[in-house]
């Protein structure tokens, strides 16, 4: 016991202190969701490696990615957070609903910002209540609205009397869109049908038989991990029209559609960033990172959907850090400055083009009241013969008339429960 604690203490003391910008990456390269965690973590790390190799860091200060393996396990996430926060961590990307909920109170108390990009607690959009939590550029309720908007578009604006089914992971994550979809159904007059799938979701015969028997016009999916592959396979098996099957952005990676082969052709998913690797930035990535043998992981994930998402998250973090450096006038920023930088973040097309990522994500701006950006999202479609996703819409707005009051209500409930006085 004594020997053990000495070793651990020695190991911890050996780590260097605050000479660079620390970006912890709470990754999961093991466990049930490893296939999704690996590309995200690779993309996140590669982008910072690129900045270090090409530009010498951010504003002249090298960025350091502290990777900590969580295995998608909440307790390990807590351990990772405690182990890395002392090193001057600037922003956390927990990449797990459970860990995000853990960190919302903890990080707020410690004054470290959390960026839960397209996941976590949706009402964190209300920055007046969730001072340190950011979920730009889009959240689940935006996603639900995007999906319904897309269905509206396809049907020429009238979907009253249609039946829309939601196949969802029976957990906090999967239940997120239900309230929004219910509100939207009141507005647009469609009928909502709920089909929960219990974790892990390997056996979905019952749900898809119900789809077959009830014949909903559209199926939405909030799935994660093995549930995605099985659902797409089962949908293909019952010959459900894949064009009417729309998944959230976490149900739309290559991993999810490839096992179903040709059957997945036409499947749609939402996204808040672009796809593929046809961007000037990827040439730099190839030159400075991949060819130099500095790629994270096996280096075989470049250009996949989740790699791009990890890279996009890193890009937003780096841009926020740059903004923070500009505001505070110092290159070596603290988490508090980083938070201010994130709150003042503005992504424009010109900015992205300058970075070598033209039209890679939606334009948005963050403010103290609005930590969720403008909620723009697009729809993409899987082309099985080409083995590639294609964006089929531009970045479009969600129905803020419906979502706004929901965010307001949920964040107010949280504020009352935890004794927070909202304010900017």
């Amino acid at each position, binding site marked *: 016991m004594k020997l053990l604690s000495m070793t651990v203490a020695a190991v911890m003391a050996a780590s260097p202190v605050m000479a660079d910008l620390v970006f912890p990456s709470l990754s999961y*390269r*093991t*466990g*049930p969701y*490893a*296939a999704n965690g*690996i590309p995200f973590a690779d993309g996140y790390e590669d982008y910072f490696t690129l900045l270090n190799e090409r530009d010498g860091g951010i504003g002249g200060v090298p960025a350091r990615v502290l990777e900590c393996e969580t295995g998608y396990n909440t307790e390990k996430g807590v351990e990772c957070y405690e182990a890395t926060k002392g090193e001057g961590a600037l922003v956390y990307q927990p990449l797990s609903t459970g860990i995000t909920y853990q960190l919302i109170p903890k990080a707020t108390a410690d004054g470290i910002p959390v960026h839960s990009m397209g996941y976590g607690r949706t009402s964190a959009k209300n920055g007046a209540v969730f001072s340190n939590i950011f979920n730009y550029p889009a959240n689940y309720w935006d996603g639900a609205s995007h999906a319904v908007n897309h269905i509206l578009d396809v049907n020429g604006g009238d979907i009253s009397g249609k039946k829309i089914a939601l196949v969802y992971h*029976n957990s906090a994550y999967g239940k997120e869109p239900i309230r929004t979809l219910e509100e939207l159904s009141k507005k647009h007059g469609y009928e909502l049908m*709920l*089909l*929960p*799938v*219990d*974790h*892990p979701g*390997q*056996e979905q*015969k*019952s749900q898809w*038989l*119900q789809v*077959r*028997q009830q014949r909903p016009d559209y199926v939405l999916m909030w799935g994660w*991990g*093995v549930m995605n*592959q*099985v659902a797409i*396979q089962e949908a*293909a*098996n*019952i*010959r459900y029209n894949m064009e009417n099957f729309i998944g959230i952005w976490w149900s739309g990676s290559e*991993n999810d559609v*490839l*096992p179903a*082969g040709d*059957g997945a052709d036409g499947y749609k998913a939402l996204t808040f960033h672009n796809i593929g690797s046809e961007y000037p930035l990827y040439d730099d990535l190839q030159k400075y990172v991949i060819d130099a*043998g500095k790629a994270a992981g*096996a280096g*075989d994930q470049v250009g996949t959907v989740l790699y791009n998402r990890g890279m996009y998250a890193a890009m937003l973090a780096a841009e926020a850090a740059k903004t923070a450096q500009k505001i505070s006038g110092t290159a070596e920023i603290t988490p508090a400055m980083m938070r201010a930088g994130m709150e003042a973040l503005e992504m424009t097309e010109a900015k992205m083009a300058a970075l070598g990522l033209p039209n890679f994500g939606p334009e948005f701006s963050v403010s103290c009241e609005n930590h969720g950006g403008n909620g723009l999202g697009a729809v993409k479609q899987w082309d099985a013969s080409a083995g590639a996703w294609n964006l089929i819409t531009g970045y479009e707005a969600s129905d803020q008339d419906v979502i706004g009051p929901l965010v307001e209500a949920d964040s107010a409930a949280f504020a009352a429960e935890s004794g927070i006085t909202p304010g900017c």
Partner: protein
Amino acid sequence: MPDQLLFAMEVTLNGLMAGVLYALVALGFVLIFKASGIFNYAQGVMALFAALTLVGIMEGQVPFAHLINAIFGTEIHHFGWHVPALLAIILTMVVMVALAWAVQRFIFRHLVNQEPILLFMATIGLAFVLEGVGDIMWGADIKKLDVGLPQGINEWIDITTFEAFGYGFFIDNLDISATIVAMILVAALIAFSQYTKQGRALRAVADDHQAALSVGISLNFIWILVWSIAGFVALVAGIMWGAKSGVQFSLSLIALKALPVLMLGGFTSIPGAIVGGLIIGVGEKLFEFLIGPMVGGATENWFAYVLALLFLVFRPQGLFGEKIIERV
């Protein structure tokens, strides 16, 4: 016929098919438990490991590529060849037999005569090791498994039932193949245990270890044999489940689907595993269909266990389990 009844019939048929898949996993448990009294929690991970190995061999992946690359700084991933499915299955079986030998040699030989709970925990330890080894050996990405089994809706059943009832039933071709494979597997197992010398030795060991030892049966050999057979069953289960969802980590969780089947059918009975699987499959699907919508759905996980529990209260040894005789 009213729609609801037709739907219920379709659900029942699909439940039977799902039950066969559960039974396939449960069979592996029963084999090992019967022969050695070990409740092998690692059966699910063995299915994952077998499926990973099969895909890895078929695709010509270099085992431990990630580890080798990390240590030596090399960049190897694939041998660059593709192995036909049948040959790959045979090669995978060789790996599973080696695994059976190693499990016997390094773990259970040292745990002879221990309490069942300890043996059970040892298999959980084994599950950890296999998970780690499987991931390091073949990588954690999702792999497509294609051994040429048909998949998708069965046209003939669809058309025939449509003509008969005006509503086409959905039966997955993969489920039909699984049923056929399961029948062949059970027939082969029965033939093996009835008509071969090793099979009879196996039954003798299952009946009474000491008596079997005294007539000159090598327990060590039998246990390696039974772990190998369980490895084969795991491979079959891995192929069937892997074809549904791709080969990935979650495959190891199918063990949890097999446990209620075991409770219901009894830990020691092969027909019990089959019948138990069918009852659980139909029971949980019908419950989800009839009662599920009233209580909010996603009931299958717990209902299977509750159903098995209800059976147990009336028959504590399971449907086909050996009668428990208690003496002081």
